[in-house]
């Protein structure tokens, strides 16, 4: 099978869906000739034209609200928000309108839109271009939230998100855009249903539950531990909402030791939800150690590259947390 980058996978998902359904339109800042802030949409303007690949003013609120309105009236818009930090400017239409319109209008509305946005640190973007804000959107009933960690998952999940009849926040990972992964040939269509976690590495001693760019990092650490005879299972949550609780609980029951890893700040982070899902379940009597969280520090993302790298879970910190669980 061929290998493509995560960014190419996202582009292929959008292009394939746009070929399939003429009601899909794509709004965003500089997504046309420029190809988007991270080059994800390069070439799409040539294929789909200005009627469907639509450069917008720098108006995150208006374009998100516009997408919600277009979705409520029969289209299936995709919106690209150039950095996930900028969803702060789009929160009103996302949270009060898109997420609630079906419920508050008694089921009359559907809002089939996807808000795609890159999140995460590691690029030197500093405080306002590096955050991982997924917990904010996970806290809003009516939204679905997806964070893929591989090219394969990015393509299959985005295609499913575009076909979903609800507003989906699809958080891509800046540092994964250039990573390559095995993806079926164009034409061999596949979709990954939302709400299904994926066991990226099968193990029996310790479970690491993670998502996004921490997945490859945890897999690397798990590989190192296997040489020492510690067999780690790595569960990639993939869809934060709806959460595949069964998968997490089954893995916890099997290993009895759970480490939750994410890049976002710890306080109020989604790791708390994951940890309590495991603790507050039938897995509890199987646990042989406290469920441990390893998250980003509760600080804004600093500019300095050495500091930036140290405030998120590093391989060393993950290894240390694994050892603590192992020795408990």
């Amino acid at each position, binding site marked *: 099978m061929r290998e493509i980058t995560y960014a190419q996978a996202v582009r292929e998902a959008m292009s394939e869906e746009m070929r399939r359904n003429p009601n899909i339109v794509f709004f965003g800042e500089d997504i046309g000739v420029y190809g988007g802030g991270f080059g994800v949409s390069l070439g799409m303007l040539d294929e789909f034209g200005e009627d469907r690949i639509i450069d917008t003013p720098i108006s995150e609120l208006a374009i998100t609200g*516009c*997408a919600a309105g277009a*979705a409520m009236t029969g289209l299936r818009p995709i919106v690209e928000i150039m950095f996930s930090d900028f969803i702060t400017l789009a929160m009103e239409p996302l949270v*009060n309108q898109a997420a609630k319109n079906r419920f*508050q209008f*008694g089921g009359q509305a559907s809002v089939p839109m996807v808000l795609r946005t890159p999140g995460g640190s590691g690029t030197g973007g500093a405080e306002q271009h590096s955050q991982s804000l997924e917990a904010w959107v996970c806290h809003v009933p009516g939204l679905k939230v997806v964070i893929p960690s591989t090219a394969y998952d990015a393509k299959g999940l985005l295609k499913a998100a575009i076909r979903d*009849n609800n507003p989906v926040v699809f958080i891509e990972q800046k540092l994964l855009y250039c990573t390559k992964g095995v993806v079926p040939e164009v034409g061999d269509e596949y979709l990954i249903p939302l709400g299904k976690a994926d066991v990226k590495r099968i193990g029996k001693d310790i479970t690491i539950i993670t998502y996004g760019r921490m997945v490859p990092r945890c897999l690397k650490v798990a590989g190192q531990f296997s040489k020492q005879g510690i067999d780690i299972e790595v569960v990639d949550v993939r869809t934060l909402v709806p959460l595949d609780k069964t998968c997490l609980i089954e893995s916890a029951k099997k290993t009895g030791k759970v480490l939750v890893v994410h890049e976002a700040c710890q306080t109020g982070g989604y790791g708390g939800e994951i940890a309590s899902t495991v603790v507050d379940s039938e897995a509890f009597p199987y646990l042989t150690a406290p469920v441990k969280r390893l998250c980003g520090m509760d600080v804004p993302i600093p500019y300095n590259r050495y500091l930036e790298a140290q405030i998120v879970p590093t391989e060393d910190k993950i290894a240390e947390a694994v050892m603590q669980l192992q020795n408990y």
Partner: protein
Amino acid sequence: MNMILSKTIHKELYYKMILCRKFEENAAKMFNLGKIHGTTHLCIGEEATGIGVCSVLAKEDYILQTHRGHNQSIGKNMSIKRMMAEFLGKATGYCKGMGGSMHIADFSVGSLGANGIVGGGIPIATGAAFTQRYTKSDSITVCFFGDGATNEGAFHESLNLASVWKLPVLFVCTNNLYGMSTHISKSMNISDISLRATSYGIKGISLDGNDVLSIYRETVKAKEYVLKNGPMLMVLNTYRWTGHSKSDTQEYRTKKEVDEWKEKCPIKRHGEYLLSHMLFSKEDLELMHIQAEQEIRDAVTFAEDSPEPCIENILDDVYAE
């Protein structure tokens, strides 16, 4: 020369305005009796705005409503029974009791919903108008909002977006002079809100918001205009007789000011026009009042007899299938 309006249209405008007035007077009464939960935002005194505009529209034209939008609902031919049921939070209401009057919507007649967020409907309207243009329909979107909303970022971003994309949307600002308690003189440095259109490169007009006939006629022209040229801002200058909501003690304005505006009642004005132009007799108008009162009574009975929604169904509409 003024466009001649048929007797049928005059009757429709007058009847809808009195129906709206009675609907709200009744709602206020029910609120005082403790039958309505939450709050009420009445548009008494502003009936000509939503009714004048919406009576021009076809079912396929979309509207985005405000929290003070009963005149817009009635203008767009929504069912009084289901509106009343929603007011009472009943399962037969437009939103199955989930939204209340602040979130009333009827997609079957083109109402994409009322909004509890000031200016919240304005970006949504650009999307609805985008769909209309994308699907090459000959319908338009009308977006209602108040004077206060024109100070929100959503107003600025959306009018700019609609302008650069030439979307078929008519922005209708109901200027009732107050954003809750704050007079517009304290929240903006202009008195004619339609001037704001200039900065987006679109047409803006300012009308007497208590003159239902002028509003109707100008909306007919505006619909043609926006289909051809893109967005337009229409400001309807009016006044709300009651407080912002039920908790408002109205310390910020004088009784004299309110009384002066009551003299400019849009219903009284249209009624006098109908009589002086011999379109209807006093008896005809009285009959309409009796009919409207009966319609309200039927709606109350329907709403009161309707079941409460059940908690078993609470998850039904959080997500679509």
